[in-house]
């Protein structure tokens, strides 16, 4: 099993969710995060004084998938989260050692 994590632009979340549902992904977890990569932040003014905002609001989503499904999931996220403008985000894949469904106690790929 693999954990696919993606940091994307917040307004793209609905598109990504729809794309993942369309390929059969059963569930995702979403966190509101702030971050920056090459996008950098911007400068704001508050009561006449400037201040730099480095961190930009993003959404982080996590989904655990079967090894066989990883490439499909990565491609779906890549396609649906892209706007072509800087700040689109990143996707990374890591290993999952163990997975349990709390309600039934099922383990492994059955718990996905």
């Amino acid at each position: 099993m693999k954990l696919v994590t993606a940091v994307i632009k917040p307004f793209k979340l609905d598109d990504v969710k729809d794309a993942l549902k369309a390929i059969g992904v059963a569930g995702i977890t979403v966190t509101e995060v702030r971050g920056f990569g090459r996008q950098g932040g911007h400068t704001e003014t508050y009561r006449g004084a400037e201040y730099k905002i480095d961190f930009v609001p993003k959404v982080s989503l996590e989904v655990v998938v079967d090894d066989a499904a990883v490439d499909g999931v990565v491609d779906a996220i890549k396609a649906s989260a892209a706007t072509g403008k800087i700040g689109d985000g990143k996707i990374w894949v890591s290993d999952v050692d163990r997975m349990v469904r709390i309600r039934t106690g099922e383990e492994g790929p059955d718990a996905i």
Partner: protein
Amino acid sequence: MRKRALRIISGLGGVLAILAITPSTVFGQEIYEPTTQDILNNVWVFLAGVLVFFMQAGFALVEAGLTRAKNVVNIFAKNVADAVVGVLAFFAVGFAFAYGGDGTWIGDSMFFLSGGDAFGIAEAGALTLSTDFFFQAVFAATAVTIASGAMAERTKFTSYLVFSFVMCALIYPVVVHWTWGGGLIAKIEIGDAVFSDFAGSGVVHMTGGMAALMGAFFLGPRIGKYDADGNARAIPGHNIPFAILGVFILWVGWFGFNPGSELLADFEVPRLAVNTMLAAAAGALATTIVIWSKTGKPDLAFIGNGALAGLVAITAPVGTVNYGMACVIGAVGGIIVVFSVLFFDRIKIDDPVGAISVHGVVGAWGVISVGLFAQYPDAFVEGKVGLENYTASGLFYGGGPDQLIVQLLMVLIIGVWVTITTGALFAAMKATIGLRVSREEEIEGLDYLEHGIEGYAHDVAHQS
């Protein structure tokens, strides 16, 4: 230096002392000496005006609560702007257009409040120019702020400033002139019936609501409000506590709006407040019942709209109906608002807070309800007559259809005027300076891009 200053001061003091003891006829004109009642009248109307101005906070909270966090600075900015620009515009020209002179179409005197008695009153029962302007200005601010809710989350700030100015300089004052100012609509007489709008369901709320409708229409719906099949999507507000606090603040403010419109400190004031209270409660309860049965849940945001609908509905008939009918009128307002909100959603007019329905549609109902339920004499319906010998003018009280016809004409005339003028204004802005923010800005949120600050900034932690 000090000696010279002391001499000037004692000289001034002497002049003032002489003026104070001089009989009022010495300078060649009668100066009316105000009685305690006169002073009570003015102080009460002034205080009522303060309550009405506090409604600006109520409107701002309702609108902020029912829209998204990324636009919260912008919605408050619109509310500050329309109060600021509106009051100044009304001071400069609006009050003059509304109340200057006896013309049928528009006022032509008292620009910048000139020409009136700055300090006193001419006769018993009158309001000083300052009291009158203060009370009328806060009503103008109320009329203009109604539109900001329907235009929320996608309107350019500059365009909204222009709208605020034109609304309070011209569009609203003309409506006032045609009604409370004695112009076009006030001159309509059918039988014994003349128009009746005690505190402004038509003059203020319907006017604001129709402007809101034109604004929302020319703007178009928010991005994402309608899906590919044309169904409305919910865009939940980010702070329901704000919204309900806003409703309560408006409710309190309405105790200035309606009872203050008596323009006197008398026993009508508390009776008007009771009618107002009952209508608001009945409206909220009616909406609760309707939305609970329709959707299975008592949606608090809708219920807040229902209380406001009750308040808007009673604003015209408040002086002329009994307590029971106040409940009925408020309840009908609460029922209408649910179906109106759903209707506008269906015809693709995106109104984030329901302003068109609460103020425009229910405002019209308030005006019409006078024709149906008017019973007691109020300043419009019968003139000030005693309670022994009045004849009720409402259709259901044996007054025949005359009052109802006048009320319907009033709805029609105001509706046509506001639709045409605000429609022309929004169309002109759309074609020139632009009405709507860019797509990127609307998605990102208006706060940073229109105003340069965030509404809910994360704490910064400078270490040195």
